[in-house]
């Protein structure tokens, strides 16, 4: 089995999850000698009252919020990031807090790069850019949190910057902030978590360290995903899903992205669908391809997805198959999951563009595999 000469594992953030997690931010920032954070978030979050909750949570502390910028749009361009970096400098802030997901977190990472290194974000495009230590960076996720946001990757203007230094230093998952709004967004979010955890778990480069995190993420997701989609405002399931995202982020960052993730991101970019939906539409196809190519699933997939009892009861050589069946069952039981790319109305020529895009971004993926996944999903 897996006999690589060496493998690394790194997960920088301190996770604080649960009741009154945000109240601990001042203490943690103080540990970094920071008392003057710059807070960014999006209009939706501030208008739904979550930003106010955050401000209230910081009452009775010594932390002065330098500015609460709540106008980050769904696409944060380089222009905005530069302006915000200048804003941060002008206010003399010493740390960054991002409330939200997606573009807010990416923008915060971009701002952090500019203010900490003094150079422009775009200079660091590509893998493992040497950034050096950045300013303390806190993420307060909301319901649509995907593992991707919590890793050391930043997607700015379609360019990816990956570095161990880009991790958030603190992730404060607060029960007040992570309640979902509707099944649709919850489904899309959960599917991203599922895909990223699954691909980290099934990756040929998996190792003991990433396995531990990926299988735990899968366990939590398998237990909660259906309920989370059905009842997106349930505090407990939301907390569980946010935790799953956090855990799978640890595995995801330390593995190469798999085909479904890459294709899903590319398709989402080209068609405007949420990434989760694209991934959900591709996932069954990718699994089928795997079994078609006779690449056996790992036996402990069943343990992660089906639970300990089912795993133990099954015969040893049967576990991989049962694991696959359990997984397929789980995916199909998610209410409203897109049935193939046709339900998303993705035409073939767009899908082909997505293949090219994904193959260019992740040269390690085999183009033939991507093509097969797409044609099966269509």
């Amino acid at each position, binding site marked *: 089995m897996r006999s690589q000469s060496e493998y690394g594992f790194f997960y920088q953030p301190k996770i604080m999850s649960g009741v009154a997690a945000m109240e601990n931010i001042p203490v943690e920032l103080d540990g970094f000698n920071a008392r003057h954070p710059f807070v960014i978030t999006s209009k939706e979050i501030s208008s739904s009252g979550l930003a106010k909750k955050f*401000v209230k949570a910081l009452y*009775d502390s010594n932390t002065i919020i330098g*500015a609460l910028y709540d106008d980050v749009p769904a696409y944060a361009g380089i222009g905005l990031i530069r302006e915000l970096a200048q804003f941060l400098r002008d*206010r003399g802030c010493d740390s960054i807090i991002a409330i939200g997901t997606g573009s807010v977190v990416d923008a915060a990472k971009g701002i952090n790069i500019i203010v900490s290194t003094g150079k422009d974000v775009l200079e660091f495009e590509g893998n493992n850019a040497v950034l050096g230590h950045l300013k303390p960076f806190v993420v307060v996720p909301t319901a649509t949190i995907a593992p991707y946001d919590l890793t050391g990757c930043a997607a700015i203007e379609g360019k990816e910057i990956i570095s161990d230094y880009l991790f958030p230093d603190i992730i404060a998952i607060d029960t007040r902030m992570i309640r979902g709004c509707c099944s649709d967004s919850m489904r899309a979010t959960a599917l991203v978590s599922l895909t990223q955890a699954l691909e980290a778990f099934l990756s040929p480069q998996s190792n003991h360290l990433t396995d531990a995190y990926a299988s735990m993420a899968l366990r939590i997701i398998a237990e909660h995903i259906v309920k989370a989609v059905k009842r997106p405002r349930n505090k407990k399931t939301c907390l569980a899903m946010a935790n799953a995202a956090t855990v799978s982020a640890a595995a995801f960052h330390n593995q190469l992205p798999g085909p479904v993730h890459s294709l899903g991101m590319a398709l989402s970019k080209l068609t405007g669908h949420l990434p989760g939906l694209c991934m959900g539409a591709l996932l069954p196809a990718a699994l089928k391809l795997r079994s078609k190519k006779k690449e056996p699933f790992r036996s402990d997939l069943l343990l992660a997805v089906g639970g300990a009892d089912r795993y133990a009861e099954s015969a040893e050589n049967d576990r991989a198959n049962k694991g696959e069946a359990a997984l397929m069952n789980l995916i199909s039981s998610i209410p409203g999951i897109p049935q193939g790319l046709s339900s998303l109305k993705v035409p073939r020529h767009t899908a082909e563009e997505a293949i090219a895009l994904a193959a260019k971004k992740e040269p390690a993926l085999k183009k033939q595999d991507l093509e097969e996944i797409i044609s099966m999903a269509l």
Partner: protein
Amino acid sequence: MINYNNYPEIKPGKKLLKRIYVATMLFVFGRAFQAVSRVDRSAKEEFAQMPDDFVLDFCVVPNGPHMIVGKDGKGRITYLGWNPAGKKITLAMRIKNIEAAMRMFMFLESSCVATSRDRLIVDGDLPTACNVLHIMDLLEVLLLPKFAAKLGVKRYPKWSQLSPLRKWTSRLLTYVRLIA
């Protein structure tokens, strides 16, 4: 262009009621520390294990309230008030924020759950901190009725550990000393 004026600096507000509540509770606990050290046998044992220069600052960061308890020159435990200024603190037990303190003192989180949730920062000699926590547990048992104390401690003492006679005498004496 960002209009800076739309995004002003936000100074943290105050949670006055919560502070008053926590301060009151800390005052009661401080007085009770002093009281119980003179009446209860097992509390005396615990205090005896503490070093002579023991001064505890039990507080909420960053702005208080505080509760300071220490040994005076004669080795007796006394409540030293709410102001840490000028006192040589040997053991600081800090609650990370007022919200956590509220949860603790409203018995939403028992002291052991609070500890396991990392709500407390202990700075100083750990064994002494253990003694303090033991006494806190004892105080909860003595000061509160059984149903409330059960929420606060992991295991409500059995007869074999704490006979009703001892419990009630200690409880009575502690209350008397607390008020007097």
